[in-house]
């Protein structure tokens, strides 16, 4: 089992030039749970995740892991506790699955130290956990999108961190692979207690898979908590600017948001007809 870690974002602000992207944001990530960050495009959700993993430096405020600023601690030490899977990682041409997963061992190795049995065990564990052991000798370029994403998650697993951040792990995947990846992350969280923080596009998937849902708007946390408390018609109206209906998903008992546009609602057809002559 993994250790508990506190991951806290403290009055964080970040701007690109004059444009403020994150504005005095506070967030406490619950340890050992799955948190999902949602919000409209350009609300700063990816920026927040990238700042938490120190890819970006904040203008003011801190990201504290166990009370220490992630931007100040040694890079390797951080990489042994917190991993990140970026949105579109690049695999070198021709690299095999086992080799790519092995790259996740980097933070555990010294400059000239040799590859150890512990490294092999970590790689084998990661391959097994993601069910990619069969693919171990294949080239990453040859895999399908879903397989490739599982391999990248395996690489992050080989890093053996207690906290894992993922930036839109389901983009470019079709629905079956999205479910596959999210199920895998849930397995990981349930079996090892890994703290998972991910940015997700799909509100309904986020509500289903997250223990803790964070809705961002305008660079601030607009609402956070249990999905049922966060995903409401009011929050959707403010955060995404659309009308919606939120019902309870009959399969998961989680909230399910049905967006409403100007058409295809019971009274929209009539409205359109009335407006036509003008």
């Amino acid at each position: 089992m993994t250790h508990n870690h506190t991951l806290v974002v403290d009055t964080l602000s970040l701007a690109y030039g004059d444009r403020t992207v994150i504005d005095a944001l506070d967030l406490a990530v619950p340890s050992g749970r799955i948190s999902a960050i949602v919000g409209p495009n350009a609300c700063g959700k990816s920026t927040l995740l990238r700042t938490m993993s120190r890819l970006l430096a904040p203008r003011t405020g801190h990201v504290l892991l166990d009370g220490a600023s992630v931007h100040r601690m040694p890079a390797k030490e951080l990489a042994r506790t917190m991993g990140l899977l970026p949105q579109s990682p690049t695999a070198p041409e021709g690299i095999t699955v086992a080799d790519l997963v092995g790259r996740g061992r980097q933070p555990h190795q010294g400059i000239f130290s040799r590859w150890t049995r512990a490294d092999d065990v970590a790689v084998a564990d990661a391959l097994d956990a993601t069910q990619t052991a069969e693919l171990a000798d294949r080239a990453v370029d040859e895999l399908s999108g879903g397989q490739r994403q599982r391999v990248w998650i395996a690489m992050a697993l080989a890093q053996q961190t207690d906290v894992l951040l993922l930036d839109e792990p389901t983009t470019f995947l079709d629905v079956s692979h999205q479910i596959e990846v999210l199920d895998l992350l849930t397995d990981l969280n349930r079996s090892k207690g890994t703290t998972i923080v991910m940015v997700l596009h799909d509100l309904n998937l986020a509500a289903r898979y997250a223990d803790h849902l964070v809705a961002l708007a305008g660079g601030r946390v607009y609402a956070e908590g249990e999905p049922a408390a966060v995903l409401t018609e009011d929050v959707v109206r403010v955060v995404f600017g659309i009308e919606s209906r939120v019902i309870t998903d009959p399969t998961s008992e989680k909230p399910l948001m049905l967006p409403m546009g100007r058409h295809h609602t019971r009274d929209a057809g009539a409205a359109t007809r009335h407006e036509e002559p003008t």
Partner: protein
Amino acid sequence: MSAPAATGSTLDRVLGARVRRAKGRRRVMLILVALIAVVVVVSLMVGQTFYSFTDVVRVILGQDVPGASFTVGRLRLPRVVLATAAGLSFGMAGVAFQTMLRNPLASPDIIGISAGASAAAAFAIVILGLSGTAVSLVAIVAGLAIALLVYLLAFKGGGGGSRLILIGIGIAAMLDSVTAYVISRAGQWDLQETLRWLSGSLNGASWQQLAPTLLALVVLAPVLLGQSRNLASLQLGDDTASALGVRVERSRLTVLVAAVGLIAFATAAAGPIAFVAFLSGPIAARIVGPRGSLLVPSALVGAALVLVADLCGQYAFGTRYPVGVVTGVLGAPYLVYLIVRTNRAGGSL
């Protein structure tokens, strides 16, 4: 679901594959070293006068052999050592660039760094009348400055590898025209010599000229080797590398300075031997496989390339060609082939 413990079969598989590959890798490197040794000895034996293997070995061991001591020890040995050192430098620095920028086309001879060192060296020789170490220094400063310029122009605007390559090509075109101007100012007598140097040549190698190159190799190669793990992570993209605990900018700067240093010292001594930096990495990847760091295999391939090309250039054709012409004629079609293959595969380069 229970915690997935490493099943025996997966662990065996991972372990077995790694051991197999490590063995294969060691075997390939041994073959390369053996090849280099053979070519070195052959290069020392043949020439206007032929010396036997035993003569050559005795000279290398420091014994006095009439005739051979001068011809082999003073003339052929420095040439062969320069070829080896330049090949090692080009091969290692080239693959460092290619790995760091994640693109086989991003080698220093394509993105203008060699062109910068050449232009500076030609300027130093023809206009300033410098020679020896001074030329090396000018070439190194210019190489670093150009590397920095290309880097700043490409990255400060945001963007990545392909932009950097195109900008490098533009800079190289500009520098080539500077070199052309310098050549046009060279006297008729200098012309042939300058041209020869610019195409990369080992003619007239001396121990004196060799010293800086060897020193650079001894100092800078370990620096690059120390970065090999970081390079492997940088290949996965800046974000992933950073998540793996690599300090991206610092690591990149270290690689940049060390690789440019290697290139510039070797260029100052032997001229920009065409395409060695560009070719060695892909060839090494082909024979070693993508597993593990390519720095050492690529350096060995570089040395083998230069040695073989020099031997061919001297004796395989009617006229004696400088080594750079041979590597250029061999390497250019490969460059085109690489682009054809990448385009076919639909790769984004």
